[in-house]
């Protein structure tokens, strides 16, 4: 628990954390996009997912954007979440749990031994695979911290720690989602 506390209790203000994350992710994406654009592979891509999966993915992205905007918007301003932002965050969290289940069911890589098939080419690229793992993994952490805090398990310090881990987990979800959307876009373009 104390190790978790050391990781979660960050002395930096959240504005700095968000700014740092934005700069790192932005720089990575720009540089990587330039590199990918310079070295395209022109692969053939076939649609693997059905309409339901695609709708679930789009909804998941939207819900995550709502969650991130309501949470990090307030953290950026240095205030706690309140009013309709909080209501939207809580309401969206239910949808997030459902869509997370759908996403893990439809999109988690099912093994690396089936990559010979041309319509699963996107799973060959490391960024698409690992960002998907990261996305589901961090989402589980973000969801677990809030679900656990609803149960009579943690004491006050534990609850405060869970809230911190929830924020860090939420940031990881956002970063993973950005990377995953980027990776999906690149693979759908057939460049990787």
């Amino acid at each position, binding site marked *: 628990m104390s190790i978790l506390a050391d990781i979660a209790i960050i002395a930096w203000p959240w504005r700095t954390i968000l700014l740092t994350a934005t700069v790192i992710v932005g720089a990575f994406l720009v540089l990587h996009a330039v590199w990918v654009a310079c070295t395209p592979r022109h692969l053939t891509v076939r649609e693997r997912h059905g309409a339901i999966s695609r709708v679930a993915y789009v909804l998941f992205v939207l819900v995550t954007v709502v969650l991130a905007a309501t949470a990090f918007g307030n953290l950026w301003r240095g205030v706690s979440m*309140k009013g309709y932002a909080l209501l939207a965050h809580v309401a969206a969290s239910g949808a997030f*749990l459902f869509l997370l289940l759908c996403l*893990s069911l439809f999109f988690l890589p099912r093994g690396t031994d089936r990559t010979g098939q041309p319509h699963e080419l996107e799973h060959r690229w490391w960024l698409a695979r690992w960002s998907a793992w990261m996305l589901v993994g961090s*989402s589980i952490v973000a969801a677990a911290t809030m*679900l656990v805090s609803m149960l009579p398990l943690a004491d006050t310090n534990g*609850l405060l720690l869970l809230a911190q881990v929830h924020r860090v987990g939420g940031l990881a979800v956002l970063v993973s989602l950005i990377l995953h959307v980027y990776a999906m876009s690149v693979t759908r373009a057939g460049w990787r």
Partner: protein
Amino acid sequence: MIRIFPRLLKVSLWCCLAWQPVEQVTAQNRFATSDNQSGYVHWIDLYDANNTRIDPNQENPPPYDPGKTCGRCHDVEQIAHGWHFNALDSKVPAGRPGFPWVWRDPRTGTFLPLSYRDWAKSWNPDRLGMTRWEVAAHFGGYLPGAGVGSGPSLATSSMASTEQREVADDADQETEEQQFATDRTAITGPLPLDCMICHHRPGSGYSPFAWTEQIESQNFAYAPTAAAGIGTVTGNTSRLRDDFDPAADGAADRLPKVAYDLNRFRTDGKVFFDLVRKPSNDACYYCHTNMPAAAVGGQRWLHDEDVHLRAGMQCADCHRNGLDHHTVRGFAGERHAHGFSMAAFSCQGCHLGEVDGRRLEASNVGRLGAPRPLHRGLPPLHFEKLSCTACHSGPVTEQELDRQVNSMIHRLGEHVKRDGDELPGIVGGALLPLTSSSDSPLYPHRLLWPSYWAVMEKGTIQPLHPERAYELVRRALRVRRDFSEELAEVRLPLSQRREILGDSRAGVREEDWTDEERQQIRAAEAQLRKSQISERMVAALSAIEEAYPGQQAVYISGGQGFVRDGDTGLKKLDREQLGDAADPYKWPLAHNVRPARQALGADGCTDCHRADAPLFNMEVRPIAVLPDQQPAAVPIHRLQGIDRQLAERWNRLFGGRELFKVVGWGMFLATCGIFFAAVVWNLGSYWNRRAS
């Protein structure tokens, strides 16, 4: 190497910050101390204000002066700048609003919250033209002395008044306020600091109420002697005329007299002072008693004390101080005048060992055995939205706010009959933000609606000096003692009773009236009362307007403002004209702390998140002073700055919370199952490929 720099910086900063306190601590050490935890037995000589040892057998002995008596071994000068004395010191951080000094004048229905500290919605006595002496005489009975009544404070006030008078004389005019401001410093002398009011041992015979009585009699210098019970004081300085000269021939005979109890003196002339280093709870309670109005009149046994006190703690365990007497107030973010950290003495600091995400030093955590709170199952967001006291302190949150009485405001300590409806009305337990910032957590507050006479000039309402108001309105109001009671007092003339009841029944005693007759009489009395109040109030407001030409007279009460409507009627000022002049003075409360099982939320989320939960649905009804006034109730969510519709949406959301928990956990566990199955599947595939 790089890691050393932040530490060096921290150490340097600490040294800079610590330098001042260390210097002051050194300054405190110029007096010898016993330093034994068993304390020091105080067999001491008494000294008068001239620093002369008192001989109790001498003819007409002077009263003892605690400043000179205690000051021989204690740094009284340093002590006299502590929290209870430094309201006038603008350099001392005001901190969050605290208990105001409420100027009471029941004759005119004036209950005005005052403070020299910069607390919102309180008035600074200096700006109302009150002299420091007036303030000391009015409030000194529930203060430990010195402070506003100290020599330097009174001298400053006198000098300011003299200068103002000279300026006014030069301009061939004297402001109306100055005529009524009183300064009898030359007769009473300064208000002495009485160490014993806090440091007496309960049961030692010291009587704080004797102190109060002496201050009310303006026997400032005699109050410590009378309160300590070492002598009896006869005489009343308040009966001396304003032009009385204490230095004149024969004047001494008219001043109060002290007769010391010789049995209290040892053969060597020393007196035993039964005192304690750490003030007892009872000493604090004398000025800081706040209790439900329902607890007066023999109902106190139904109410509990603060859990900390029941657990054996003392007020001074948390509200502690050094020799500088900067008593810890104990709220989050408090700044000590000398820079000491007080984080450990707030609720969070003591119970959690963590303030604003920073862990306190191990030596500051869990002091006095403070248990760590559990809050199991409480979403942590609540720690940002609510202060600790919101759920744990004050009266249990109900639809009606709890009416309260306070020692300083309602003169608890005096032996009189009370019914709990004494004015000014104070209500407690309203959960409100501390500041107007929408990010402020909710704190339980006490509220007091001011009532006073004022004039409005250019849209600004300025209260009148209460004595000035009394002089102007007393003839019109025809009130001797109690504005609310006497203004409402009506007696139907016999002719009117005859008209209502008929000649044969008009002389019948009240007990023999029929219900219908009683109802008719009550209706006629109500009508008469209404016209009496209106008539006298209009006359009073007219009297003020005569004295202040070109300005509109206003009476503020119960959150409303009243002005003259022509020559016969009263009308209410609209909100725009009234501004914030009638807004309640509100200040957060921290006690009594209730047991955890009585905390708000102990019975689950629906304590607050349900359609009729008091937290967002209670109505705050101002308490009015003007008889027959019906102040409009204000929904609490408006004072909280909370959107009512939003609160209702939350309540609806919480209707399905239990189901959400079950379904949410179900989906979450299914997701975890798929995730770990996928992990195992992929790892299996990986090992299979490696093996092949």
